[in-house]
């Protein structure tokens, strides 16, 4: 009982444990959402907010369906739904393993400031690589509007 209380206090005291745990839950939630709903049935509960209002396809068109196909191991089909789907899916997958790894380090008391900077730097670089087409599209849209 005392050990349990101590471990709870430790979780509360260390933001790293809490942040990594929350991100693991969120990322697993995204993956399970993709696994639960399929592209064949097209039964996604969250509707696209922009595509219903804007004329034509947007860069994120078919991203959920692409994720679902990737969860089922159909890479070619996933690329057909959204060509950028696989790289974003890979980013999320890598993030799950990174969060698990850094959580392991925190629990082992090996998580110093060097690891924090390494974690943040690697995540930012991977994010930019994975979301590069979206960043370019965003830039295009902002330039065209203003």
């Amino acid at each position, binding site marked *: 009982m005392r050990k349990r209380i101590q471990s709870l206090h430790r979780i509360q005291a260390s*933001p790293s444990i809490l942040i990594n745990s929350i991100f693991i839950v969120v990322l697993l939630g995204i993956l399970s959402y993709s696994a639960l709903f399929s592209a064949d049935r097209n039964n996604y509960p969250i509707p696209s907010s*922009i595509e219903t209002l804007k004329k034509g396809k947007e860069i994120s068109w078919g991203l959920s369906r692409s994720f679902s196909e990737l969860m089922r191991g159909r890479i070619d089909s996933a690329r057909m739904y959204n060509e950028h789907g696989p790289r974003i899916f890979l980013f999320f997958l890598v993030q799950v393993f990174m969060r698990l790894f850094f959580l392991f380090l925190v629990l082992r008391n090996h998580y110093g400031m060097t690891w924090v900077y390494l974690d943040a730097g690697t995540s930012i670089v991977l994010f930019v690589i994975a979301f590069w087409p979206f960043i370019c599209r965003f830039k295009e849209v*902002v330039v065209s509007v203003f």
Partner: protein
Amino acid sequence: MQEQNTNAGQGLGIAGLVLGVLAIPLGLIPCTFFIALVFGAVGIVLSAIALSQANRGKGPRGLIIAALVCSILGFSFAFFWGITLKKASPVIKSVIQEIKQEGNLEEVFKDLGNNTEEILKDLEIEEQDSIQETNQDMEEKERALEDSLRVLEGVK
């Protein structure tokens, strides 16, 4: 020297950081900009409260500042997508107008389809009436000519 050994604002700071970090990719994806807008806004509010708590309680501020930066970034991405959508509203209006116009045309065609037989019958009746009228006129003119011929023959 003041020691920073309190946890003031840490809980809200963590919540703000999670929301802010989630708001960044969601804000870049056009389909999910609305979720990012909400996450970013809530993240900014939570981070601001956490920052004021940390300032009062002399707690660490690094995480809270990171949360505030992430939330502002995510919110800005989503906000720009929102503006784009608003600017694109003439396109939406034109689409709605097109749909409305097509709807009117369809209605006209439907009405025409339902009343075609009636319209044809009316046209046939009108034609028959006009033919009858012309026939009557011709008969009257023939009679008038015959009468005038008889009168002329009688004069002779």
